[in-house]
């Protein structure tokens, strides 16, 4: 376990050698995607230069190596989540694909009119549209847990989060817009009490918090490689074996069958039955390298530093007039995202002007249109933190906002 400063960490990330408008980048768009440490890039290169082959059913050395690396990566992902077995880990192309898999393979054949899927008002489209689709296809209905003034799940909604009709609770662990950390453990307990299953969208929690599927006791959980310093095109679905084993695969093709005849086929066991086609071996291997990298740090120290930096940012931004912050006021109740609006200036104009200062933030609805509607805004600006950010990045953000004010304060 090591705990280097953000400056030392930046040295691990080749992209920060590049200059933008003559300056290094203050990259504050980590909730969209994280930058990649050298170790991850090297894992990709090493795979393609030394071990590249298709997996399974190949007898030759390269193919054995590729298969082993792939299955080791599955084991690595299982350890990352404290899953009871690698067999609970399905590799997908990302969180979105993982959630769609559960929607189509678990929910679609099982739900029916009268059944209820419970969501929150802060879900990302990727943990919302698949359930709308299931609701349309099965006649089940959606119900939303509302938020309080600080963008947390409102206490009175938490209390009646689930009902006897609830079959599934689909909830984000951390909001990609507000940064709010949701009390997932408690919600899972409530769901379990009425016999409902739970799926946790961990796309935004895995980069910031320890995620332990056995402690959470959720039935499914999904995250994306590219948001935990790993490559694009790979993600993970965790599922309890009792569910995965009972689910029919949603996509079919090579690599997931025992026996195929002209009129039918028998699937392999989980997790392989859900991985039709040539897997993204290089992606899985580089994801494992990313998890090694991330867990090479002292997690508690990292989290402590992130909370401190969030506090610093909330303070620095909070002192600006005309700037409105969203999300919990307590930095310890949030992870990553720091959303705000600037009075009279559209978020895209804010982001554009900041970009001119080499400060990368995102402006938009952040794939959370229902949340925007709830907040009564068309869009927000969002700064979001990664391992390598420090107070200097926040200072540059604040200076950039000064510039925004300068440009728009002409009248």
């Amino acid at each position: 376990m090591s705990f280097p400063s953000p400056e030392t960490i930046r040295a691990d990330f080749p992209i920060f050698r590049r200059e933008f408008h003559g300056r290094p980048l203050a990259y504050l768009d980590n909730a969209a995607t994280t930058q990649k440490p050298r170790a991850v890039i090297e894992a990709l290169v090493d795979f393609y230069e030394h071990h590249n082959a298709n997996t399974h059913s190949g007898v030759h050395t390269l193919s054995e190596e590729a298969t082993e690396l792939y299955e080791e990566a599955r084991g690595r992902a299982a350890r990352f989540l404290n899953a009871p077995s690698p067999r609970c880990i399905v590799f997908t192309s990302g969180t979105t694909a993982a959630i769609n898999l559960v929607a189509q393979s678990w929910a679609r054949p099982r739900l029916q009119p009268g059944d209820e899927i419970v969501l929150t008002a802060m879900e990302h489209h990727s943990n919302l549209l698949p359930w709308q689709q299931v609701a349309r296809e099965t006649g089940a209905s959606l119900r939303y847990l509302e938020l309080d003034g600080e963008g947390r799940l409102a206490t009175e909604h938490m209390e009646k989060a689930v009902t006897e009709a609830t079959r599934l609770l689909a909830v984000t662990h951390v909001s990609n817009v507000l940064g709010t950390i949701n009390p997932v453990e408690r919600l899972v307990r409530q769901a379990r009490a009425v016999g409902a299953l739970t799926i946790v969208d961990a796309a935004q929690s895995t980069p910031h918090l320890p995620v332990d599927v056995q402690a959470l006791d959720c039935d499914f959980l999904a995250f994306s490689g590219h948001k935990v310093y790993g490559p694009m095109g790979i993600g993970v679905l965790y599922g309890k074996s009792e569910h995965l084993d009972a689910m029919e695969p949603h996509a079919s093709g090579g690599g997931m069958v025992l026996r195929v005849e002209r009129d039918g086929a028998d699937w392999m066991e989980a997790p392989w039955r859900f991985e039709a086609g040539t897997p993204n071996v290089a992606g899985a291997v580089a994801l494992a390298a990313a998890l090694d990298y991330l867990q090479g740090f002292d997690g508690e120290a990292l989290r402590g530093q992130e909370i401190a930096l969030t506090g610093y940012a909330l303070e620095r931004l909070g002192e600006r007039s005309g700037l409105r912050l969203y999300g919990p006021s307590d930095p310890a109740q949030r992870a990553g995202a720091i959303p705000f609006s600037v009075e009279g200036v559209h978020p895209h104009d804010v982001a554009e002007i900041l970009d001119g200062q080499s400060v990368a933030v995102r402006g938009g609805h952040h794939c959370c249109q229902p949340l925007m509607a709830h907040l009564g805004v068309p869009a927000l600006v969002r700064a979001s933190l990664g391992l390598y950010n420090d107070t200097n990045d926040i200072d540059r953000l604040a200076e950039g906002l000064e510039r925004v004010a300068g440009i728009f304060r002409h009248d």
Partner: protein
Amino acid sequence: MTEDADTLYREVILEHARHPRNAAPLEHPHRRARAVNPLCGDELELTLTMDGEAIREIGIQVRGCAIAQAAASLMSKAVKGIALSEAQALGRAFADHMHGDETSLPAELDGLRPLEAVKQHRSRINCTLLAWQALGEAAPLVEK
């Protein structure tokens, strides 16, 4: 350092964004259209009254960024009084120009030159086209 953003947010753009021309919705429009930019959520409502083939009055309401607002305002000035089909052709020429084709800007659109800085900002180009897009689709309203 900040040249980029500065060129984009020139005084004329900011002025149009702050005080958009033809921003009032028309009371008895002959044509109407709506355009949205899915990537940023910008929304625009356009109404027209016609003198035969020609655009008599135009009203545009934009919920969007300064660029989209200024672009709509500049556009509204440029198309007033000319034939709708001609205005739509100008819109296509403007889009081609903004997308970097080697076409020059039609003389009628001289007033839109301040928007040329947006060419360097690919993700914002659509902001300059939103009003033209609505114009291209402005459908006749059937009297009820």
